[in-house]
């Protein structure tokens, strides 16, 4: 639940209104001048229809320098951001050779495996020399190496399931698995704030999709009861199967999912549960095993567990873990397994080494230290931000902290001011979030030291005062202020 103060709501609407009006006026001028210049595409409809890229041309281009900033070093705790300049009012940006060393608060590197690591990198280079960067073949043809089988075993053990299958990209994992599991005549019930890959997979499968209110088990139960009683649309035949899809940590809110209640409901109504742990595997839980460990849910209760290796393990790819029969069936029919090039062997080696470090099999206690560090870092940072009066979303223990901005003008202001002081942050606005709810998203890593965090807090506090986003008073838990706000879901 996000509560916007009244004044902020009005000013945000006003700002967007102004931007739209100006955008339309400029479009009008563009159309007028366009009448005179001829277009050589006679008889073709334009490839991008008029209003589709209105947001892109008129709003996004003004603040384009806050996004897609190139870096020239590894995405560790500190990295080099390449400076860019523009000659035509931000429409095109040109690279310079100047770099500035900034504190990294935006990359998804929760356990600090992103840069060169003392245990993992030598092994990765060795496997590169042995297996080459790619196998140029799909898993069923000639692309399964010893490393792939080893990786699948390791992942299955780590997550707590009998078997697992890995793919070269996390997005494709969702998009290619969901159509293989469910088709026309089935029902998918997904959380309203699910990631785009899940929506893609659900649409591609041909099943009916229904949405339940974000993280609300009671609404899920209502939707399930209604749907089972009604049956398929128009024919009212009973559904073939129902799959409920939730995520472990929601990347735009930083919230943990209410997993135990949702699993109880799924079991009661005989629906299958699909858990997407893209951000939570390796980052939460005492030994890094994800939300199941943190919230005390048995892995055997979740039918399908999915996750990616990009965030905590510093590599690329995704996995699905489940029962042996499920994995065997997926290996037989999943298109990503049959047609796509198999995962790059050095990347597989990186994951195996990272898991070994986490479990302590490399002979040191670095893994346990990393896990404790990230929990400590995130809780410390979050409590300090709340003390300063920022509106921070999410739960304790989650390493993602969105700070609300609301006003569109504050997006570039915050970003550029922070960059001047050598702190690199990530701004999130439409279309990843609703139009009015723009935010800054901070991702904490285990490789941040205490000094880094203190510096970051100083800079954020300073810039926050300048830009004016301390919506709450500096003491936490002031009841009067909250009653005056407009509640917005």
């Amino acid at each position, binding site marked *: 639940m996000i509560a916007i103060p009244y004044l902020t709501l009005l000013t945000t609407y006003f700002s967007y209104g102004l931007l739209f009006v100006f955008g339309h006026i400029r479009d009008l001028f563009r159309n007028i001048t366009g009448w005179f210049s001829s277009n050589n595409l006679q008889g073709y409809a334009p*490839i991008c229809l008029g209003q589709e890229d209105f947001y892109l041309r008129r709003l996004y281009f003004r603040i384009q320098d806050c996004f897609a900033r*190139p870096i020239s070093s590894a995405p560790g705790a500190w990295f080099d951001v390449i400076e860019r300049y523009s000659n035509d009012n931000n429409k095109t940006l040109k690279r310079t050779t100047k770099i500035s060393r900034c504190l990294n608060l935006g990359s998804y590197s929760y356990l600090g495996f992103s840069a060169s690591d003392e245990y993992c990198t030598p092994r990765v280079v060795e496997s590169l020399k042995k297996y080459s960067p*790619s196998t*140029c073949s799909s898993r069923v043809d000639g692309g399964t190496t010893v490393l792939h*089988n080893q990786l699948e075993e390791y992942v299955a053990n780590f997550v707590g399931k009998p078997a697992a299958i890995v793919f070269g990209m996390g997005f494709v994992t969702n998009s290619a698995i969901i159509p293989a599991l469910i088709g026309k005549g089935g029902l998918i019930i997904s959380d309203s704030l699910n990631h785009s890959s899940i929506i893609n997979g659900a649409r591609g499968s041909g099943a009916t999709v229904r949405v339940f209110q974000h993280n609300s088990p009671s609404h899920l139960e209502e939707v399930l*009861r209604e749907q089972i009683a009604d049956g398929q649309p128009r024919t009212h035949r009973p559904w073939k199967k129902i799959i409920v899809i939730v995520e472990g940590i929601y990347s735009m809110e930083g919230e943990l999912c209410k997993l135990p209640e949702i699993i109880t409901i799924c079991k009661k109504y005989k629906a299958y549960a699909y858990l997407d742990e893209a951000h939570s595997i390796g980052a939460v839980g005492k030994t890094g095993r994800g939300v199941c460990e943190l919230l005390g849910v048995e892995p055997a209760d979740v039918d399908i567990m999915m996750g990616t290796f990009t965030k905590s393990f510093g590599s690329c790819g995704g996995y699905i873990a489940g029962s042996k*029969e499920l994995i065997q069936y997926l290996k037989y029919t999943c298109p990503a397994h049959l047609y796509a090039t198999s995962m790059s062997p050095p990347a597989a080696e990186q994951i195996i080494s990272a898991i070994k470090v986490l479990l302590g099999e490399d002979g040191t206690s670095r893994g346990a230290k990393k896990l404790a560090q990230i929990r400590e870092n995130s809780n410390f940072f979050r409590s300090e931000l709340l003390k300063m009066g920022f509106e921070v979303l999410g739960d304790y223990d989650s390493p993602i902290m969105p700070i609300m901005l609301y006003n569109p003008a504050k997006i570039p202001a915050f970003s550029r001011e922070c960059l001047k002081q050598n702190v690199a942050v990530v701004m999130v606005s439409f279309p990843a979030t609703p139009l009015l709810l723009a935010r800054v998203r901070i991702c904490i890593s285990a490789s941040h030291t205490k000094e880094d965090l203190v510096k970051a807090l100083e800079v954020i506090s300073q810039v926050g005062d300048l830009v004016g986003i301390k919506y709450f008073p500096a003491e936490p838990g002031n009841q009067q202020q909250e009653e005056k706000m407009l509640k917005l879901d």
Partner: protein
Amino acid sequence: MFEASLNSQIEISSAMASAVLKIVNTTLDWVTFALDAPSARAVVFGVQIGGHLFVEVLLLVVILFLLSQKSYKPPKRPLTKKEIDELCDEWVPEPLIPPLTEEMQSEPPVLESAAGPHTVVNGKEVVNFASANYLGLIGHEKLLASCTTALEKYGVGSCGPRGFYGTIDVHLDCEARIAKFLGTPDSILYSYGLSTMFSAIPAFAKRGDIIVVDEGVHWGIQNGLHLSRSTIVYFKHNDMESLRNTLEKVTAENERAKKLRRYIVVEAVYQNSGQIAPLDEIIRLKEEYRFRVLLDESNSFGVLGSSGRGLTEYYGVPIEKIDIVTAAMGHALATEGGFCTGSARVIDHQRLSSSGYVFSASLPPYLASAAITAIDVLEENPVLLKKLKENIALLWKGLSDIPGLSIASNVESPIVFLKLEKSTGSMKNDLILLEDIADRALKEDNIFVVASKRSTIDKCRLAVGIRLFVSAAHSESDLRKASASLKRVAALVLRS
């Protein structure tokens, strides 16, 4: 007597009738008088109000009253809580997966070394025809050197999507290099080959647009078409007559085609059959009927054309005529990922609206630097292309006289596709025979070939077969061994 009684009857009946008539008339006069009396002298708006107006008004009121009555609907009875509970208890879902059959249990062979022209499977060294390593770049020292430098500098993963600090300078360099090599204004990198097409198509085609596509395209394209929700029309595989007829039909049916975007989607070298699309004919048709062309050059980039620039160079067509070119880099370039190239407007649009680019982590930097090195090696050594062409010709000659198997692919395609001359009628049985051939070739002659497998959700209905991927690094003896072995094994399996 008779006539008298008849006359008297007529008289009586007429008297009765006239009496009844008189009564009715008197009543009517009385009623009229009664109604007229109150308003006998009223004139409203120049209309004399007569008594009949009251009757008409009354009738109108009665009609309106009846119309306003609600029609009878059977009362709604929503399900009670107890009934919903019962329904939920009775409902039995299907199992998540269908029961496993024997064919689902097969395991692919496991490689124990790099997937080069010779590789180690189950401890034995075999000749590898299952990797699309067309230029033989797997294991090339320059590639390995550049990857190692990149690994030590950047680590493995890029830890973020392109919009949030996942853009590393090697990505920008790689995009510029590809654009320079192909001669287009700009290009965009995707982190996985399969996701390139199914993210690019929905960015440019929405509900209502028309897409004409070959029926033999691979699953990535089919998924992209499904996600775009446009009208899809298939034409016969690689048949230009069928394409012309389909285009004719489609333009005739849709007169309001000014607002619609119309696309033709083809692959340069088809993954499912090895045929090469006749690009010059397609360009002629495209200009005649005003369609845009999307070309998937995964298996022709780095293979066809005198300097490896793909199908456009092979047919001498300027690349500006193709609107969108995509390719997966997991074939000739011996790395992973994919790219898309075209005009600046096309590429810029994808940077914000292509879901596989915006919502997914970017390509690991070492793979991007491998791509740059691969293109450099290709440009410096055009002899690799010549060697590849020679190898393809040799293999073609060797495999063209196998009894029971015929070559279904084009004579210049790097995928040599063998299919059964006489199909058994069902795809499953065909596949059993072909897999038997492939197994025996591996076990007995150390030749690693694979039969093409189809997923259950794939819509392509072309014949299955055995695929051989020819590489520039294969030696003549490898190719001769392969032909001899396949001849022997095919004769053995197909005769029985």
